[in-house]
Structures are given as C-alpha cells and as structure tokens.
C-alpha cells in the first residue's frame, strides 16, 4: 500500500473514531441527556444482547424478504421493458424522458396509497420498493441497449450474424455493464425505500422495530438496531458491488 493510500485509510478510520469519542464525552462529561443520546458503551452492551438472543431474526427476515421480492420484480420487469423500449428509436424518444421525469418525483409519496391498496403488511413495502427501484433498472437498460455503437452492429450483420447471435455476442455484452450499474443503484434505493417505509407504516421489519423502540424510549437498544441495520446494509451493498465487478469482468 502506498503512503498516500495509507494516509487515506488512516483518515477514514480516524473520522468515525473521533465522532464516537465526542459522542462518549457528550454523554459522560458534557451532560447531554441519556434519553436523547445514550452512552455508546450502553449501546454496545445492547447490541451484544440483541445479537446473542437472536431477537432480530423475525424482523430481519421480513425486511430481507420484502427486499428480495421487490428487487426481483423491478430487475426482471425493468430489464424486459427497457429492452423492448430500446429496440426502436421512436420508443426511446417517447418513453425515456417520460420514465426519467417520473423517477425525479419523490415516489415515497405513493406509500399512503399503497398502504390503502395492499395493507400495512409486507405487500405495500414490496410494491413501493419495486416501484422505486424499477426506474434506475429500466433507464440503465434503455441506455445500455440503446447506445450500442452502430458500427459494431453493422460489422456483425455484415459477417452474417443471426438475430440471436447479434443479441448474444454484441448487444448483451455491450449493454451488460450499464445494466449492472443500474441494478446496483436499484438495489440500493429498494433497500432505502423499504426500511424507510417500514418506519412510516408497517407491522413488522427492522425499520418498524426501530420506531417501536424509539417510542418506548429504549434508546440504547434503538441505537443498537440502527447500528445493526447500517451493518446489514453495508454488507448487502458490498455483496452487490462485488457481484457487479465480477459481472463486468466477464
């Protein structure tokens, strides 16, 4: 590791360490109320307890199930619809700006409507997560298939490529990295919107449990859950990032 990169790593570790130290001082020395900000030591104790008892499992299962179903829906429909749109310049000109415009709307506003339609259970979270993550996937798919260099397509046709060969050996490899990038963004926004909507209107899930603890003033436990969700999200994003890097190399 070069000296410059080592320096970057040191700062990256030092910043959170200093923040935690300030947090500790705020609760022990500077008299910040324990109800507003629990002692970090208490949070660590609560986290140990949560992990040891496995009490997080039912909520984690609900959240991950919602995420998996929502992402499966948005990834398949986004790629399929994006591919169909990308096959004609006319359809790209009509639908691409339309989809981009809808994506710019805060789609979380659909949550009350989805709760009315699908109830307070997982179905409304799945619907919201799928809706929000559909857009980055479909837009990336249109961009991926729509921007394949014309010369490559012409060259393949001149060499006698069939429609399937053109798709398999030219269009798909050209579009694949762009689609993967769209899927990574889609996955991230699906996770954000599902946990976010669990905190607003739900019966179960990690977001739901955090709000419950907050309302019961169980601050160390609530902070422990927040840390746990952050860690889960970091692991999931890392996995998706690695999958994308692996897919790009192929």
């Amino acid at each position, binding site marked *: 590791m070069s000296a410059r990169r080592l320096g970057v790593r040191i700062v990256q570790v030092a910043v959170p360490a200093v923040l935690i130290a300030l947090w500790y001082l705020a609760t022990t020395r500077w008299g910040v109320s324990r109800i507003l900000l629990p002692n970090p030591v208490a949070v660590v104790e609560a986290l140990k307890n949560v992990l040891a008892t496995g009490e997080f499992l039912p909520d984690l299962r609900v959240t991950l199930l919602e995420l998996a179903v929502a992402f499966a829906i948005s990834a398949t429909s986004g790629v399929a619809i994006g591919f169909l749109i990308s096959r004609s310049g006319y359809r790209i000109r009509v639908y691409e700006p339309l989809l981009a415009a809808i994506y710019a709307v805060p789609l979380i506003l659909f949550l009350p409507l989805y709760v009315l339609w699908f109830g307070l259970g997982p179905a409304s979270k799945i619907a919201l997560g799928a809706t929000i993550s559909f857009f980055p996937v479909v837009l990336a798919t249109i961009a991926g298939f729509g921007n394949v260099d014309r010369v490559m397509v012409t060259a393949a046709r*001149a*060499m006698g490529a069939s429609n399937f060969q053109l798709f398999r050996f030219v269009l798909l490899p050209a579009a694949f990295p762009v689609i993967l990038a769209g899927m990574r963004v889609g996955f991230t926004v699906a996770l954000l919107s599902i946990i976010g909507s669990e905190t607003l209107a739900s019966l179960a899930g990690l977001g739901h449990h955090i709000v419950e603890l907050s309302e019961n003033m169980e601050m160390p436990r609530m902070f422990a859950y927040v840390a746990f969700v952050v860690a889960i999200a970091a692991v999931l994003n890392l996995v998706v990032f690695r999958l994308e890097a692996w897919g790009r190399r192929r």
Partner: protein
Amino acid sequence: MSNEPAIRIRDVSHRFGEEGEARNVRALTGTSLDVARGELLCLIGPSGCGKSTLLNIVGGLLAPSAGSVEVLGRTVAGPRPRDIAFVFQENALFPWNTVRENVDLGMRFQGVARAERAERAQRALVAVGLADFAEHYPAQLSGGMRQRAALARALSLQTGILLMDEPFGALDEQTRMILGEDLSVLLAATKKTIVFVTHSLGEAVFLADRVAVFSARPGTIKQVIAVEEPHPRKPEFVTSAKFTGLRNQLYGLLHDEIRKTMSAESARPATPGALS
C-alpha cells in the same frame, strides 16, 4: 478464371430520406462501374460524395434507391457474408473480446467448425503480424494494431471480395504509410478483389490498380485512372516520377470538386429562410 467482373455496378443512385423532407439528400446518382477479379480499386472524392454509400450498397448493407449491383454474377439483396468481408474505419472490433476472440467470432457467425476457426484465426493473425497480441483486448492496442486486427478478422472469413471503408482514416500519416506497404504485400498474395475508400491521394495511388474519382454531391464517378504498377508496391514507388504524376493528376481532378462542395456548403443559409 472467367472474364466476368467480380463486381458489376449499374446505374446506381441513392437518396437518403424522402423527396420533400428536410433531411432528404441525393448521395449518389447514376453510377456504373465494373471491378475485375483480383483488382484493387480505390474510391476517392470530396467528403459527402457518396463513396462510402456506394461501398455499403455493394456490400448489401444498404439497398440502392435505383439501379443494381451484381457480385460474382448474383444481384446483391442484403449482406453476403460468404462472398464479402468489410473493414470499417474504426470501432468495429468488440471491446469485450480479445483479438483472437474477435477474429473467431466472425467465423462463428458463419458456422465454421471450431477446430478450423482456430487454425484460420492463427493464420490470419500471423499474416497481419499480430500473433503475439492475440490475447490482448482492443483497448490495449494502438490504432494501427486495431486496424490490423480488423483486417485479420476480414481475412479469416476467406471471402473473394474485401470492402474497406477508410480503414486507415483515423490513423496518423506514418502508421498509415507502413500499413499501406504491408497491405500491398499481403494483398498481392491473396488475389482478393478489393474496393478501398480513402480520402488520401497518396494512399490511393500507392495501393490501387485503378482509382475512381468521384464528383461532388450528388456523387458519381467522374473519371477512372489506371495506376499500372505491379504489386507488391515498393516504398521507392512513392518517390518515383510516375507516382508524383498520378498524384498530381488526381489532385487536379479532385480540386475542383472539393471547391464545389465547399461553396455549396457556405452558400447554404444556417437556418432555412432566416435570410429572406
């Protein structure tokens, strides 16, 4: 070998867009030409004169608005991968494939068996001097090497006809000269029929058996000049009086046409009707 030409172009015209449309362009008008078997014919002319359009029509990538093209005795009605291979100006290699995979893929599109593909790919790569770079990706090669790879891919298809659309157009002058010399040696051995589009006068004289000079848009062939110098051409040919004479003759023919193109462009108002 029969005396029938490899390529017979008859009264070919082409128009992009419909009459009356804003983007309607007459690219090519009433063009006729025969290309003999084993001949290297260069198409040269001002930009926009329709020389690439004619090449695409010969290759079956574009259907002419009028007229017809016969290749090896059969009318062209679409790509003819078994008879015709293309080399494009640039970016026609697949960047996610190595050089060897790129060469392989063209033959795979034609259904050549795997073992034969490997052998033909190796031979083509050796012929263009890229055997040591077979496992490189296009992005790892210089522009000149990429065009050698594209040529290897075209050669591996073993077609009788090779259509080259400004294959060295994006390269610097030195690289272009070296590739031109290598191409002359390579093609003298293959006996292919070649149509080569260029905008370089020197390249045309150096490579061609005959040079067809285009007029300004709507383009048609204004004159055909024979070079009459055996292949492979030596580097000394470039400094000969014959070369200079032919080059000057081409320059004279082209100069007026390029002037016409430029004055037509400057006479056109920026926005139609804005000056009225």
